[in-house]
């Protein structure tokens, strides 16, 4: 075996150096944040009153309520489980409406925010309208779309909800749009990146057979990214379910509304019933997306 010469060694070690520094930097960044926040494990030891509340709440985890815990229940109130089911239904309806809007925005803005549709033909083309659009209008559209979707994403759905409630009151549309804006922005960002990262072989082939730039984009690039886009949309639907449930805290009849009400009345068994309903919803969506993925994606 040959001895490693000194300049070889310098070359070999240089390749490792950057990575080592990066790993150390990430680790020390985490530690710095902990120190900065003065995080202390002793904070997790509850006060004596807190222990009681925590015990009262968590002890009901294994025995969620089947019937109302209140002593007086008006005679026209539907049974608890039926009410949980209705709340779950409302949660799904809000989430579906918001996701439908978000998907439309995500696809449109994702198209404008991807660079694939306006990057020119590798062989170039003689100057005409298309070339002008590519060279001068497209980069502006691309840049401003990126800023727009960053803005949509950077504000949480709860903050959008607060704004819309103040402006329009407790209308269903306020809740749907509040969820749809940040979700549309996130979908647009991820879609555009998935499309830009999709393999270009097919797009190149389509261009070679005379397909227009929009056809190349829609039929050469999007289908290659479609499995990933579908899987991601399902994941976002799950997130939309959670957000839709949380909007109940503002008074919408989704699961969050009943969770908040039961919690305030110290009916922890009911809280668990609603929480488990939400859990079942998320598991159902997960199972559904898994089944679809097996069929279409694999």
């Amino acid at each position, binding site marked *: 075996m040959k001895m490693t010469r000194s300049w070889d060694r310098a070359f070999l070690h240089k390749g490792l150096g950057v990575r080592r520094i990066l790993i150390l930097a990430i680790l020390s960044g985490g530690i710095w944040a902990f120190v900065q926040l003065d995080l202390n494990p002793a904070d997790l030891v509850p006060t004596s009153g807190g222990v009681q509340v925590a015990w009262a709440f968590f002890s009901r985890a294994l025995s969620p309520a089947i019937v109302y815990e209140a002593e007086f229940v008006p005679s026209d109130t539907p049974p608890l489980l039926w009410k949980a089911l209705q709340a779950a239904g409302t949660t799904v309806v809000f989430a579906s409406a918001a996701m439908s809007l978000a998907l439309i925005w995500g696809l449109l803005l994702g198209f404008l925010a991807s660079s694939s549709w306006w990057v020119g033909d590798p062989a170039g083309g003689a100057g005409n309208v298309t070339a002008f659009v590519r060279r001068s209008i497209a980069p502006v559209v691309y840049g401003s779309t990126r800023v727009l979707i960053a803005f949509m994403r950077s504000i949480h759905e709860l903050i959008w909800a607060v704004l819309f409630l103040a402006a329009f009151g407790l209308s269903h549309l306020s809740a749907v749009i509040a969820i749809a804006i940040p979700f549309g922005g996130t979908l647009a960002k991820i879609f555009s990146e998935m499309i830009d990262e999709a393999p270009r072989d097919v797009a190149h*082939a389509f261009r070679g057979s*005379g397909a227009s730039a929009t056809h190349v984009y829609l039929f050469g690039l999007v289908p290659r990214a479609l499995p990933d886009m579908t899987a991601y949309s399902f994941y976002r639907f799950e997130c939309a379910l959670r957000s839709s449930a949380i909007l109940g805290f503002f008074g919408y009849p989704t699961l969050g509304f009943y969770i908040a009400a039961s919690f305030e009345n110290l009916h922890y068994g009911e809280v668990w019933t609603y929480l488990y309903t939400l859990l079942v919803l998320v598991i159902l969506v997960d199972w559904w997306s898994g089944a679809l993925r097996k069929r279409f994606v694999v």
Partner: protein
Amino acid sequence: MMWSVNEGNRKSQGRTSSSRGASFTLRKSSVVFGSTVALDSVDLHIGSGEAVGFVGLSGAGKTTLLCLLNGTVRPTGGTVQVDGRDLATLSFEELRKVRSGIGFVHQDLSLIPNLRVLHNVLAGRLGKLSFWGGMRAFLFPQRRYVHQIHEILERVGIPEKIYERTDRLSGGQRQRVAIARALFQEPVGLLADEPVSSVDPARARSAVSLLTEISREQGLTLCVSLHNLHLAREFFPRLVGLRAGRVVFDRATEQVTEDEFEALYDLNGV
């Protein structure tokens, strides 16, 4: 095998004069990528309906030459003419039109794995369709397209796969899908880049055989790059030898000497 050909007319030299095939003319065409010279001052004329094999080592410039012919690579020097029209003088729309008439079977096949065979073949027609025409064809394919595609798939030997997902097919079947897509363009010229590299030797032979046979039937001009000299000599009446971006011979197959073939594939002094 339905595509096997009868030995006698495999290398048919005489083509019908009414051939609708495209003609290609290269004059002093060079292609330089950065500091690499891919093609160096190539002069070449391929007449309507001819079948030509491009042979040489990998890296000799065969793929670049094919890409010049359908205008996906621009020459950095010299001119490329298709049917007598200089590609550099065409508008983008005119160039698209020329491209839509030239089918290209890529080495990596460039198919969409998660779509059905039908849609992959359908994509061949996009160059001839308007925006809405393409949308309609892709989302709600017309019956007449489906029938045409079925006929083409029958011709290439896999009609029963029309509704199969492309990634469920074997390598040989996928290659036939790529050929079918090129044919659905209703092309006047057919280009194929190493149609043997993605399949085993037996299928390689049948793929080349299929390409030459279909081109002859339809009067298409055919250019195929091959590093397998054996197949090239068997199926093509004319061979163009490339080495380091230059044409080292260009003549009827039986006139190429053994020494020339050996020099072409000599690994020393590349």
